[in-house]
């Protein structure tokens, strides 16, 4: 596989934008969907395809993506049906749902959908929670 520009966190465990890597689209019209890298266009753009998400094959900018550590085995520039078959074979969609990135995105979405009463209940729960922690800390401080 041809390595592309490093877009993950720097370090030993840096993720590479390679062919077959699953990416999460952070920004734009298709935000929230996942896609597989099929080919590279240049330093900043990738050709992606997401048949499992209903995402059409398209060129997308790196900055709109967040790469995951999941990967699918496909050849560079392969057709959409090949991508689809590979994705279903490795059940990548479900594997993605278990990643922390997916869970964080879900909770963000849920938080945005809260109503005024829900936000109030959240606040009440948070203060109660923090109060418990603080009282426990105070007790420990006193005893030490």
């Amino acid at each position, binding site marked *: 596989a041809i390595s592309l520009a490093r877009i993950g966190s720097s370090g030993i465990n840096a993720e590479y934008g390679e062919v077959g890597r699953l990416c999460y689209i952070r920004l734009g019209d298709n935000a929230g969907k996942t896609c597989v890298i099929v080919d590279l266009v240049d330093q900043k753009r990738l050709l992606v395809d997401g048949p499992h998400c209903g995402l059409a094959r398209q060129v997308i900018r790196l900055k709109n993506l967040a790469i995951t550590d999941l990967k699918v085995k496909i050849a560079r520039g392969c057709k959409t049906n090949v991508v689809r078959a590979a994705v279903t074979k490795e059940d990548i969609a479900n594997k993605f749902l278990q990643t922390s990135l997916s869970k964080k995105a879900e909770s963000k979405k849920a938080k945005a959908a809260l*109503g*005024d*009463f829900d936000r*109030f*209940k959240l606040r*009440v729960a948070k203060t109660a929670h923090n109060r418990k922690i603080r009282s426990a800390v105070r007790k420990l401080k006193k005893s030490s």
Partner: protein
Amino acid sequence: KEIGGDKNGGSRIVPTQRESRYYPTEDVRRRLANRKKPGMAKLRSSITPGTVLILLAGAHRGKRVVFLRQLNSGLLLVTGPYKINGVPLRRIPQCYAIATSTHIDVSDVTIPEQCIINEAYFKGEPKKKKRSEDMFEETQDDKKPREQRIKDQKTVDDQILPKISGVSHLKKYLSSLFSLRKG
């Protein structure tokens, strides 16, 4: 009209309404009559009976109240309930309320007829103008609500309060004030 005096002919016909002594030198243009009457304001689709509203203006600004129904004048009839946040059965204009997505089932709540039909029910007592002698005297204004209002408030609130206590945290929510926060 009878007129006194001997030689004045006893009685005379006098106009009952005299014309004023003053009239302008040029004819004053008469304005066209405005026959428009405000209709009942269209109720926003987000406001239905039982919706919790946030009041934006007036003495009770920031308070969360329960919407009961729209009156014929277009104003919204709301109640705190009074025991929870001190808002009585009150009329508010629709534009000064934010509707939340929280609802209470008030379909079986009966509101006293006078509140709905008679708008004068809600009108306050006219303030007594102080005379110049009394201007510096401090008068005690006993602002007590009418007995009828207290009674009607109790009738309505007694129906609503058990529904509120049925939902967890709702009572606390209604007694808290709305404010803008970060995030």
